[in-house]
């Protein structure tokens, strides 16, 4: 995508005698920042586990947190196996090729041979892993819509396949040289030369995950207690801890998306700091005027909404415009959350309202506020004389929504043929921690009697122990 061209151009001036040679010389500064960025983005998934885990009831906290943690393993391995090459292999307009399956041919040289991206100045190996951390967090985001009521094996199967079959293609379209990177030329006419601006993944990550979340939530159905009983967050400090760690990790997500250290990374870094600040102010004030209190859950939510909204814009807009994006995004997301709980859609932790509405607002506002004076490799937006960019942003979002919705629907249907998706009411009532994982989060051990090996066989045979054992049946 174009910000890579920016790096390339910069290098052209510095090393003009060898600008297009492959491999590039490794930049130790870029590599240092990207090593850290990869670790920061990896941290976002455990952070999400705390954010989501605090929002559910105590009987479901381990299940909810495992939905994120297990993504680190299953999606991570799937990414290395086939996800990466499908996303970033040169391939065609729709899908990468399989040259880099299992990280084959992924070397430590700054070599973009066979990749659908511009020149890189960091080891290809690091680039490949950095991109994997995005796939993991995106898949884990979906879990917020189906917490407290989905069989764990079916969930694992779903996010693993989703990361490969939905995330990887879309990443290819936007970042790997696919259709969204060439969307202007594909539409033609006055749109020629334009492309969808998505700096760090507003469309690929947030809109994509949110649409999938809604589809899965509708297919799995609402929790049995939804809209009947009060369902309260069991640990608000966890929610705040998660928000804090997400914010920290997001610096790697957004500023790391410069794929280099330097001016562009600094722009994205500052925007990642200021947009959530602005959202937080707007959200607290909305809370005070509407409810009489600035809520802590609201503060945590605001931070995430601000981060989501600035994600596509991070490397394309000025600091002032990033603040505007943060403030503006607070309003549709705030009212979307207020409205959603009154509907039949049990998108339990508001993936749609935070990531979907926030991602949509951010992607559109990127088309409004983007400036070439901020990033020469970007494009101007509506306010800077390029109204056509807004159309491009809309088309890209629309393509993402349709693709994500259709593919997610098919995947859940497919998995439903093989694995049970929904636990029965009794299991749901007892909680997913006991029924899906055979553990409890907050147990004192009182009343727990040690089962000796010699007794185990007899115990296995007794119905009272066997009942919660096999999650697959």
């Amino acid at each position, binding site marked *: 995508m174009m910000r890579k061209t920016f790096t390339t151009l910069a290098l052209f001036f510095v090393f003009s005698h060898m600008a297009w040679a492959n491999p590039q010389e490794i930049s130790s500064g870029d590599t240092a920042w990207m090593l850290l960025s990869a670790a920061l983005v990896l941290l976002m998934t455990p952070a999400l586990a705390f954010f989501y885990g605090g929002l559910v009831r105590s009987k479901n906290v381990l299940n909810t947190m495992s939905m994120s943690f297990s993504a680190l393993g299953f999606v991570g391995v799937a990414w290395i196996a086939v996800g990466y090459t499908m996303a970033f292999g040169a391939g065609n307009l729709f899908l990468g090729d399989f040259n880099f399956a299992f990280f084959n041919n992924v070397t430590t040289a700054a070599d973009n041979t066979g990749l659908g991206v511009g020149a890189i100045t960091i080891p290809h190996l690091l680039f490949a892993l950095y991109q994997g951390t995005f796939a993991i967090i995106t898949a884990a985001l979906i879990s917020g819509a189906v917490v407290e009521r989905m069989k764990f094996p079916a969930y694992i199967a779903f996010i693993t396949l989703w990361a490969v079959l939905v995330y990887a293609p879309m990443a290819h379209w936007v970042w790997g040289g696919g259709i969204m990177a060439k969307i202007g030329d594909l539409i033609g006419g006055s749109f020629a030369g334009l492309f969808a601006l998505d700096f760090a993944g507003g469309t690929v990550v947030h809109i994509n995950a949110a649409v999938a979340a809604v589809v899965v939530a509708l297919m799995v159905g609402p929790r049995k207690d939804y809209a009947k009983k*009060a*369902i*309260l*967050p069991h640990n608000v400090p966890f929610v705040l801890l998660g928000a804090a760690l997400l914010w920290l990790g997001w610096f790697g997500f957004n500023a790391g998306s410069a794929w280099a250290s330097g001016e562009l990374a600094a722009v994205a870094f500052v925007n990642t700091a200021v947009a959530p600040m602005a959202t937080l102010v707007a959200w607290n004030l909305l809370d005070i005027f509407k*409810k009489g*209190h600035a*809520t802590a*859950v*609201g503060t945590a*939510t605001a931070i995430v909404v601000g981060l989501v909204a600035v994600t596509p814009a991070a490397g394309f807009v000025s600091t002032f415009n990033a603040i505007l994006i943060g403030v503006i995004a607070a309003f549709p997301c705030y009212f979307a*959350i*207020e*409205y*959603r*709980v*009154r509907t039949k859609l049990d998108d339990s932790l*508001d993936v749609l309202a935070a990531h979907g509405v926030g991602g949509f607002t951010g992607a559109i506002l990127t088309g409004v506020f983007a400036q070439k004076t901020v990033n020469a490799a970007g494009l101007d937006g509506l306010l800077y004389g390029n109204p056509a960019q807004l159309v491009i942003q809309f088309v890209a979002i629309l393509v993402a929504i349709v693709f994500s919705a259709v593919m997610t629907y098919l995947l859940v249907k497919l998995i439903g043929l093989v694995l049970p998706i929904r636990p029965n009411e009794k299991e749901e009532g007892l909680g997913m921690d006991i029924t899906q994982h055979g553990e409890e989060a907050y147990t004192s051990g009182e009343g727990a009697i040690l089962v000796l090996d010699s007794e185990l066989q007899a115990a296995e045979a007794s119905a009272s122990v066997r009942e919660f054992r096999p999650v697959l049946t």
Partner: protein
Amino acid sequence: MKLIVAMIRPEKLNDVLRALYKIDVRGFTTSKVEGHGAEAEVVQTYRGTTVKMTLNEKVRLEIGVSESFVEPTVEAIMSAARTGEVGDGKIFVLPLDKVYRIRTGEEDAAAVTPVPLSI
């Protein structure tokens, strides 16, 4: 002998304990409980969800006392736990058939803490 059961505000527990120690009542059990009384319900909001909390946190005290300690104990609790606002709690005084001290097997008045001076 009587069993005195009192429901008090959690934030008044320290005051009540101090008052009980002052009159030498040193044997009791406390537990955290929740209940509903005459208080107005507290409204909370979590994201878009508004709930009213119908149960209020209280501390439950259980004190087995000999007859001479009943009135001082009740008075100590009453004065230390009172704020004058709705929600100060209740004191129940129940007849007590039998008391055993597990360590020694002592019974009744010899088994309550403190042991009354008269025996």
